[in-house]
């Protein structure tokens, strides 16, 4: 299975690109012109996201650099320790939805310190791999089309993150326990 998975992730992009181009060519699509036509929107879209992403990154950066995030993690630790799961991974529950780079750095730290094949390393790997950075996805996707009122979208994202985190711990304890 390992060979298959590496092969898929290696081949996916080249195969997709070649398949789309060849298929389109046989359908008599002017491939290069089509490409240019679609691609020219890319720049504008990226620029449109800037205000949204700057706004969000500033808030997250202040929260982390001031030490506020560490306090928040400190407050929650005793509550979470109670359940009997390695408490080292709990900061991830808060980091993961907020900052992709931050949680990846934290996961890497845990893997280096406790080893990739420890329970902590396995749980951290699974948390990192199984969900996306909710706040970032919301900012980019809604920012690109100018949505300001996000309605219930953030709540749905955060609830599913919590469910995913709890599920990860239970699954890892059962599978690797």
């Amino acid at each position: 299975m390992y060979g298959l998975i590496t092969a898929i992730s290696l081949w996916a992009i080249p195969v997709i690109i070649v398949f789309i181009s060849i298929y389109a060519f046989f359908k008599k699509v002017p491939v290069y012109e089509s490409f240019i036509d679609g691609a020219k929107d890319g720049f504008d879209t990226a620029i449109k996201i800037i205000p949204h992403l700057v706004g969000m990154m500033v808030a997250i950066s202040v929260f982390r650099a001031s030490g506020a995030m560490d306090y928040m993690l400190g407050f929650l630790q005793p509550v979470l320790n109670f359940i009997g799961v390695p408490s080292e991974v709990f900061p991830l529950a808060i980091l993961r939805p907020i900052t992709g780079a931050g949680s990846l750095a934290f996961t890497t730290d845990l893997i280096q310190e406790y080893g990739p094949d420890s329970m902590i390393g396995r749980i951290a790997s699974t948390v990192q791999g199984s969900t996306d950075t909710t706040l970032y996805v919301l900012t980019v996707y809604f920012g690109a089309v100018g949505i300001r009122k996000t309605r219930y979208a953030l709540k749905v994202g955060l609830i599913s993150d919590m469910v995913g985190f709890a599920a990860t711990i239970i699954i890892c304890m059962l599978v690797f326990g």
Partner: protein
Amino acid sequence: MVNLIWLFFILIGFIVAAAHGNIAVFSEAVFDGAKTGVTICFSLISVLVLWLGLMRIAEDAGLLKKLSILLRPIVRFLFPTIPKDHPSIGYIMSNMSANMLGLNNAATPMGIKAMEELQKLNVNKETASPAMCTLLALNTSSITIIPTTIIAIRMANQSMDPFEIVGTTLMATAISTTAAIVVDKWYQRKALRNE
């Protein structure tokens, strides 16, 4: 809710920095954050330009339409408000497929394109429509089959079995995506009733 979280981050950050007697860190972090935001957007440019170009080829060749016909039942269930044969469906489906394959930098442009199509259907242009919220829910919980980044980190740290977390990741992602769909459905029904 986003407003509250934003305010919370800034205010608590200010209070903690002040209490530590280290207010300098506040302004430093503000400009650092702004720079990170712009840097990320700039790194998105190449990815967006490339994939939006390729997606246009796929669209002109009728591939996106084929994909949406193939997966129509899923779309009807998840996005009841999108009219049949709407162009957003092809983009939503390619966004989901890219997510599943772990092609993160392809998934984002396709998701944004889908949002643009959904925005055309949206009545109130500044407020997210239920369909937009569903698309977002699917992306925040991200249906991953191959978590490539984390496998690479495990390999770099001499894991005996870097792939052993593929199974647990798959289960966890299935559960969190199911949770996202269920919670989203609940809010979606409420929102559609009120309209």
